[in-house]
């Protein structure tokens, strides 16, 4: 074995060990920036749907964002996006305008955004102004009349597919 080969072998070995160590360090650094377990554990919010009054939406804080939950009245339009429990229909939506993220306010029968005049109907669909798409859907699961925001249940999948 010539001297040059021996040296380049040592050189490559050193580079390989350094590369593995460097890559491992990067993985560790990446994970240090991941959301902490306590933050992830706080990402679920329970909402009791049976106590809602028709036509009076509530705003729930979930993962730092407002979530609108509306029990629809008889007069309100039915939509594929409704969550149906027995005879009741609910609208579940993240309460951030899909235009630039302001929080729209409930005015009689629509959500109206004060920032740029966007409007969403009782089903969360955009009906006026700049919003490009309906209000986003938060993931949830259903246990009887209790909704858990943050989990993923079959009811959520159904509405999500109806949306697409």
């Amino acid at each position: 074995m010539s001297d040059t080969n021996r040296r380049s072998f040592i050189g490559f070995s050193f580079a390989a060990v350094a590369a593995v160590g460097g890559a491992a360090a990067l993985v560790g650094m990446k994970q240090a920036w991941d959301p902490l377990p306590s933050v992830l554990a706080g990402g679920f919010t329970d909402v009791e749907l049976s106590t809602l009054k028709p036509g009076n939406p509530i705003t729930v804080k979930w993962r730092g964002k407002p979530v609108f939950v509306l029990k629809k009245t008889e007069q309100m339009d039915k939509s594929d996006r409704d969550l149906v429990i027995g005879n009741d229909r609910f609208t579940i939506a993240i309460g951030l305008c899909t235009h630039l993220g302001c929080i729209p306010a409930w005015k009689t029968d629509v959500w109206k955004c004060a920032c740029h005049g966007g409007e969403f109907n009782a089903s969360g669909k955009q009906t006026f102004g700049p919003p490009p798409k309906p209000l986003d859907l938060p993931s949830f699961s259903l246990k009887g009349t209790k909704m858990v925001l943050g989990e993923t249940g079959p009811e959520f999948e159904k509405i999500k597919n109806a949306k697409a």
Partner: protein
Amino acid sequence: MAKITKANSLGEWFDQRLNTTAFTKVMMTEYWIPKDINFLWAMGVVLAVTFKILVISGIFLLMYYKPDVNLAFDSVNYTIMQEVAYGWLFRHMHGVAASVIFLIIYIHMFTGIYYGSYKKGREMIWITGMLLFVTFSAAGFSGYMLPWGQMSYWAASVITNLFAGGSLEAWGLVEWIRGGFTVNDATLTRFFMLHVFLLPLAIIGIIAVHFYTLRIPHVNNQEADDIDFDAEAEKYLSGDKKNAKVIPFWPVFLSKDFAVLGVFFVFYFYLVFFHFNFAIDPVNFDPADSMKTPAHIYPEWYFLWSYETLRGPFFDMMGMKAADIGLIIFGMAQGIFLVFPFLDRDPDVLPAHKRPLFNIWFWLLLLDLIVLSVYGKLPPSGANAYVGFAATAVFLVLWILLPIITKIDAKRRGAL
């Protein structure tokens, strides 16, 4: 081993050990700058001094600031502003300098573009300069978050949202950057680290490289005259200062820079004492609230032009969503200036007034950036939206035209 003898003075003692005489010559008294320049060439030194002001005022703010969502707002608006002696002054100096430094950066950049100081050996000056623009932008953004007011929170929220990549919906990446589902305590502390440690360190490092990139190709001049620096330096050193085309960096060039710096300071301290509000949005005196958005969210003035390219395209085109088109143009706007030297196909270094088409291009770009900035601040409704869209389209077209018009200029001159 250096030859050490008994030193007759402190200067000589250091000279034997650190070679200070030769070092001063190389860095200062025999570092040659062309004579044929104007006040625009002083912007580099103005920037270096403004950065120094930022570091010093920042050190004093750092001693009382608390990077915690429950304490940050009061540590700034009560402790620093009302209790600490001259805390208000350090805050206003820091905030105003952070804003004004971008004005000087833009002047510095457009001086370079006008006089062609970015090509034929000067590419690295331009590229390191643009890296400084990026790191300064990151420092401005991360610092804006620290007072933890409403604008801090929502600007952070909107900007980190951009990393979802529109229809790509990369929320995992957004949550990784934030360390949570929304902008939260982890976001504040990591951006605090970036703002007071990593970014300033990177900036200082890149400034050193930026200065070094100037050494080999030398400073450009008003007529882009190709100077033989060795011959001109010899003329100057032999006493023919009048006919030499160069002057030493110290004391001649810097003394002129200090005069410009004096004028800049009058302007800067006028803002600090009488007009600091322009750099501190009144909305930011409300504490951050994730459940309440301010009526109108807009970035600081120096980000407005690129913000407007983001929201300029407001209707779907060619099967793409408006928001995605905006994001693509916005992404391009961030990177396109970096490759400027390679889009200019003219082989000669000349000031814009000697390049007919490029001259028009230069003023159109400047005008377009001003229009984009103005409309970036206005609400995007009615006619505003169309002006914003048109200005974004012009921005895009100008960059497509750049290689073509620079080639035509060169051909007409007979250089190609």
